[in-house]
């Protein structure tokens, strides 16, 4: 009986001390960043490399450099299962540790956090996802979606298809089908594609696939009937694998099937095996582990037994994407330190760093990422930056880049984006700020 009581007391003490132990790092001289991850659940195959990329890069900065200019990064993972409600709960729970920024890694969670950001003074970085309209920094000072948005991606896709056909003027009369996840994320590219269809005269068919996308028979029957020249897929999770497999089994030419950058990972081509050869996807960075940053990660993190992934998983598409995402977070903090000093910063100070980020070719080389992504410049007005797209192709074993850097059709995207920003900002009762006064 006494043993039971003693154990109960010890257990109660452990439970009570748990949160205190977790809070401790934020109270010392570190910058805290919450990581909303999904290592379990139906979307885990995508969530795991993303979480590993973030963890490894933060560890690299802490282990190799002793932090950002001497200030260590403290992070804590919180499991969201890619569920919006759980993601918001995670954010609220970790808010007590005074985070300066958050990467929601879900469009649904991003939409929920956007209204909270100005009050909480936490920067939201939704890299290549989230609300496209938030790229207008005049209306959304706390949200950044560099290096590219869905709309820029859609325009880069059309431009690439135009190049393959011998010029965008040759798109007239061609058929393009967009197979998309029936969610705000999946629908995001539709207005841009519709506008470009009107501009270039191609016939666009929009085919929605409901969550989770395990059964797409009817969609692919429609594809058979339409017989499009090109297919663009905006999927996630199992929808991607089934779509690639359906395209292959129906005998569609795989080099004319192009996924968006969330529909082109190693996991997406596993079930189709050899049938996936030739499948393409959009991206904004290079795949593979052939960059100096990977050698550094293996040396400073994995050789010390602190790696989050299997060694051979370092360099996977989503791993690289999150490593780049984390690098951009770190460089924004470093930028902020040029103004506010090498010390733990506030959310407002880090926001300034994001808005004044200027990642040059030289800096990318210093970081061991030359060629892995393009130099990037963010401004007060433009939170999307000046990112360019690439097309990668699956050769049966690995993804390889098969295009030059593609400039989005900005003259179409930017005006639409600014108009959408006004609409979205109205819903949140935001007022437009004057960037000229802040320079």
């Amino acid at each position: 009986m006494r043993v039971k009581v003693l154990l109960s007391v010890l257990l109660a003490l452990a439970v009570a001390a748990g949160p205190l132990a977790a809070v401790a790092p934020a109270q010392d001289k570190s910058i805290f960043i919450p990581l909303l991850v999904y290592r379990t659940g139906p979307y885990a195959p995508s969530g795991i490399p993303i979480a590993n990329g973030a963890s490894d890069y933060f560890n690299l900065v802490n282990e190799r450099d002793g932090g950002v200019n001497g200030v260590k990064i403290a992070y804590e993972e919180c499991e969201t299962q890619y569920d919006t409600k759980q993601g918001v709960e995670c954010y609220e729970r970790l808010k007590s540790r005074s985070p300066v920024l958050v990467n929601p890694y879900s469009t649904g969670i991003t939409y929920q956090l956007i209204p909270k950001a100005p009050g909480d003074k936490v920067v939201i970085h939704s890299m290549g996802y989230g609300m496209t309209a938030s790229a207008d920094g005049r209306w959304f000072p706390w949200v950044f979606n560099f290096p590219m948005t869905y709309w820029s991606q859609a325009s880069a896709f059309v431009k690439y298809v135009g190049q393959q056909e011998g010029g965008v003027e040759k798109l007239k009369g061609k058929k393009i089908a967009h197979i998309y996840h029936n969610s705000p994320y999946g629908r995001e590219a539709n207005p841009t594609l519709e506008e470009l269809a009107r501009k270039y005269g191609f016939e666009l068919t929009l085919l929605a696939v409901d969550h989770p996308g395990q059964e797409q028979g009817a969609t692919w029957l429609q594809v058979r009937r339409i017989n499009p020249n090109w297919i663009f897929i905006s999927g996630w999770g199992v929808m991607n694998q089934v779509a690639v497999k359906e395209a292959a089994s129906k005998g569609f030419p795989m080099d004319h099937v192009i996924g968006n950058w969330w529909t082109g990972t190693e996991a997406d081509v596993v079930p189709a095996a050899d049938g996936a050869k030739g499948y393409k996807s959009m991206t904004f960075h290079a795949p593979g582990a052939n960059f100096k940053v990977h050698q550094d990660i293996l040396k400073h993190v994995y050789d010390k037994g602190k790696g989050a992934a299997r060694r051979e998983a370092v360099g996977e598409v989503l791993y690289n994407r999150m490593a780049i995402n984390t690098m951009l977070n770190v460089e924004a903090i470093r930028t902020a330190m040029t103004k506010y000093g090498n010390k733990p910063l506030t959310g407002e100070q880090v926001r300034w760093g994001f808005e004044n980020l200027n990642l040059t070719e030289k800096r990318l080389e210093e970081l061991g990422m030359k060629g892995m992504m393009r130099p990037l410049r963010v401004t007060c007005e433009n939170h999307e930056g000046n990112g360019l797209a690439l097309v990668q192709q699956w050769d049966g074993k690995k993804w390889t880049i098969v295009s030059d850097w593609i400039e989005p059709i900005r003259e179409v995207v930017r005006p639409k984006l600014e108009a959408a920003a006004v609409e979205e900002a109205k819903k949140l009762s935001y007022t437009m700020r004057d960037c000229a006064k802040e320079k």
Partner: protein
Amino acid sequence: MDVLYGLVTPFRDIAGSPAFFVEVLIGGVAAGLMYSLVALGFVLIFKASGVFNFAQGVMVLFAALTLVGLMERGVPVVLALGLTVLVMILLAFAIERVVLRPLVNQEHIILFMATIGLTFFLEGFGEMLWGSNVKRLDVGIPDESFMVAGVLVNRLELTAALTAAILVAVLAVFFHGTRIGRALRAVADDHEAALSIGIPLKTIWVIVWSVAGGVAIVAGIMWGAKSGVQFSLSLIALKSLPVLILGGFTSVPGAIAGGLIIGVGEKIGEVYWGPLVGGAIENWFAYGLALVFLLFRPQGLFGEKIIERV
């Protein structure tokens, strides 16, 4: 007027391209039989114990994970299949001993809630055991298509259809032509009466959960070969619910008929009338149809009409 035109135009399309309509029908039949494979597992357990097994979807996943996990470790296909059957039988024993036996004579809702707990356990246990990455399941079924009189037919879907047909035949013989099958039906009708004439309830439960585990293996192989083995495989259980409502919770042929109606209905609906409402009706169409059936025939097409004295 436009709506009327939109409603009528698909009939013109069907008449204009009958070969494509046949292709849609074949796609619907194939998808329907795949749903039936999952629904069969629900029917077996409900038939024998009156319990709606919420864990059937995750049993499909667990079976497929075990099979592909063993194959990834170099175990030959046939041996891996045998070992998976063994694992599912052991699982049935464990469920009877740990979950069901302590709950004998409890309300059905309690047993239903226990199966919800089982779902979470199997999902987490499977993930811990085999990892959560997407796995390719190659059991030698070719996923290629070929043309027959202008109609595209997929080999994998054809194999799945044949497998489902064989499975139904085997289950029909099992239920109606064997002593165990008759005992299962007796338990389903009345637990206490079955016990009073010497039918061992525990053994029957182990057998029925083992058979449901076997059906889960077949469903897991077919769905796993189609989409890869991954955790969203357990979500296909959601697709089998309208199938059960349509076919009846206690009928094996009903699960097949329900699957066919849902499969063919959703394909025709999505392909021809889906564009009228912006598409993506495939998922909710099945539930809509099931709701209509509930209004007029709550016990489903082949289900037993339960009349209780109150």
